[in-house]
């Protein structure tokens, strides 16, 4: 499998009045070319920040302590702002932001915003732009495309804004698309159609995706590989099938088991015990140890490394180092 992008040992802090927020603590992530790479994990664990680091679109108070982001063997962290803008953003790597609605410009119509996006990668006549834009909007199953073009973002429903944003990014045909919770505002039927559109794009243009989501059902439908993040570190790297059949990290196991189904009753809803870790003075050693049933002494001191325990199945847990005592 070819790697399109690789993040190694990325450490990123935020400077705040309350102290240093240690948001990413040595993230290792491999994005495989031509596949859907999922990124899942607790809210606030650093998924969006990871995506934003790739495009270097971080807040001013962010400090990258160390690490590398290799794309086609070039370290993006060494790129100047100008070079990122010229060579990377949009045409090579694009991102659908989590707050899709807010990232549309409120004073421009849908048509204007989409045309601007298309202009970034293609030269065409005014009439052609319009046609390309209509084509892109139809792909994301929006009704009444013609009248939609003249609308402003506030005149659209949540799911419509999200789809306009998606259309805009797809129009760029980037080699890598980072999609941050792209379907949260879509109902299940539109979502199913949308997933189909992405799959077709992948086939036709050999596009690669980094797909950030909380929805494990969607992960199951679309992803090939999944990285699980906990408090700023990748704790498990696994194929989608093994994620559900044979999760190994204690956090992943709990996550997969807490999925809500139609049979769940409100009385038996169960959350992962313990509290979401602070990122200012986070727990030492394994950041999951205060909530882990299997924690040992070493877990409080030493950071477990991400190690391949099965074929292409990586786990960062002190209790999974021996090859004998897990699953199967």
């Amino acid at each position, binding site marked *: 499998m070819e790697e399109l992008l690789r993040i190694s040992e990325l450490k990123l802090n935020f400077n705040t009045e309350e102290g240093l*927020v240690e948001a990413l603590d040595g993230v290792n992530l491999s994005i495989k070319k031509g596949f859907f790479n999922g990124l899942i994990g607790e809210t*606030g664990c650093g998924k969006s920040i990871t995506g934003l680091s790739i495009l270097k679109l971080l807040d001013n108070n962010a400090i990258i302590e160390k690490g590398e982001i290799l794309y086609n063997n070039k370290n993006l962290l060494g790129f100047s702002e100008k070079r990122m803008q010229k060579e990377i953003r949009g045409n090579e790597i694009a991102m659908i932001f989590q*707050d899709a609605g807010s990232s549309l410009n409120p004073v421009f119509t849908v048509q204007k915003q989409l045309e601007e996006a298309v202009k970034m990668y293609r030269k065409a006549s005014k009439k052609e732009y319009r046609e390309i834009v209509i084509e892109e909007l139809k792909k994301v199953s929006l009704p*009444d495309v013609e009248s939609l073009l003249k609308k402003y973002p506030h005149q659209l429903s949540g799911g419509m804004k999200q789809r306009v944003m998606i259309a805009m990014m797809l129009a760029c045909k980037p080699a890598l698309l980072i999609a941050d919770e792209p379907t*949260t*505002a879509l109902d299940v*039927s*539109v979502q199913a159609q949308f997933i189909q559109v992405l799959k077709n794009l992948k086939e036709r243009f050999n596009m690669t995706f980094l797909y950030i989501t909380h929805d494990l059902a969607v992960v199951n*439908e679309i992803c090939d590989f999944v990285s699980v993040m906990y408090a700023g570190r990748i704790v498990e790297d696994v194929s989608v099938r093994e994620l559900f059949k044979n999760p190994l990290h204690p956090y992943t196991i709990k996550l997969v088991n807490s999925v809500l189904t139609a049979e769940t009753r*409100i009385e038996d809803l169960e959350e992962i015990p313990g509290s979401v870790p602070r990122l200012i003075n986070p727990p030492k050693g394994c950041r999951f140890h205060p909530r882990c049933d299997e924690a040992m002494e070493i877990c409080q001191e030493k950071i477990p490394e991400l190690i391949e325990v099965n074929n292409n199945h990586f786990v960062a847990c002190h209790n999974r180092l021996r090859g004998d005592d897990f699953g199967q």
Partner: protein
Amino acid sequence: MDSNLIEVKNLKKYYNSRIGPVKAVDNVNLEIKKGETFGIVGESGCGKTTLMKSILQLIKPTSGEIIFEEIDICQIDKKELRRLRKIMGFVSQDPHASLNPRMTVFDTLSRPLKIHKITRSKEDTIIKIVTLLKEMGLQTEHLIRFPHELSGGQKQRIGIARALAVHPEIIFLDEPTSALDVSVQTKILKLLEKAKKDFDLTYFYISHNINLIKVISDRIGVMYLGKIVEIGRTDIIYNNPKHPYTKGLFKSIPNPDPDKKIEKIYLKGEVPSPVNTPTGCNFRRRCDHASKICEEEEPELKKLDDGREVACHLY
């Protein structure tokens, strides 16, 4: 649980557009019962948010009545409306846009407490806010942050905290947990359930997550293109959906089971526009059972033996 808290009668909200009125909410009738959780599901753009905002008087309905405490709240004055804002809480679909970018989390949460005189002193306010944050899995360090310094799920929980803080009678929640992982989502659902018991709260809950709606709501309404097409007890509708749209919708629910992937797209065809709505039944162009009568006559909501109501000529 049987008295009605709110009655929505013949509610319409048409938006103006150059090519004609957008019928976002088109003649909706429903009751929200005291102490229940009422869930709304339906396709993106079908009018759920518009319905919610119209009931809340955040947008002015085109016509219809909303009866609360025996009066039509579409007609009340500004002062009364302010009282209503405390009684009826609202959690917006877009947490980012609903938070003031220049206010810290603490300011966002303490303002309504002051306005509605919920807490008496600064200490009171701090204690209340810190307790609420902890219950939601947030920490004190988040208090001095601005919205752009928070993750999506952190912002979303601030929106929920703001609504819960002032002890309303009913909370309208528009996709309130869409940015949360399953564990934190569970935490919030439990918190909402506890608040419901403790304060006798009522919820009006919009979500695309049909399994979640199934778990939390007593009754649901299924919306399609501005209209309610099926409404009734959750268990009854879930176990045996009747309207062809509801059936298609439920079959599209994705599963977290690697041996069961969705093979087929059940709801095909173009979503019709709310400007040129089809004659007769709105759904007929996408429906496998459409017959002549569906072209000519608009089906009305009809009560079946099990108590649910369906708007479809098959029944």
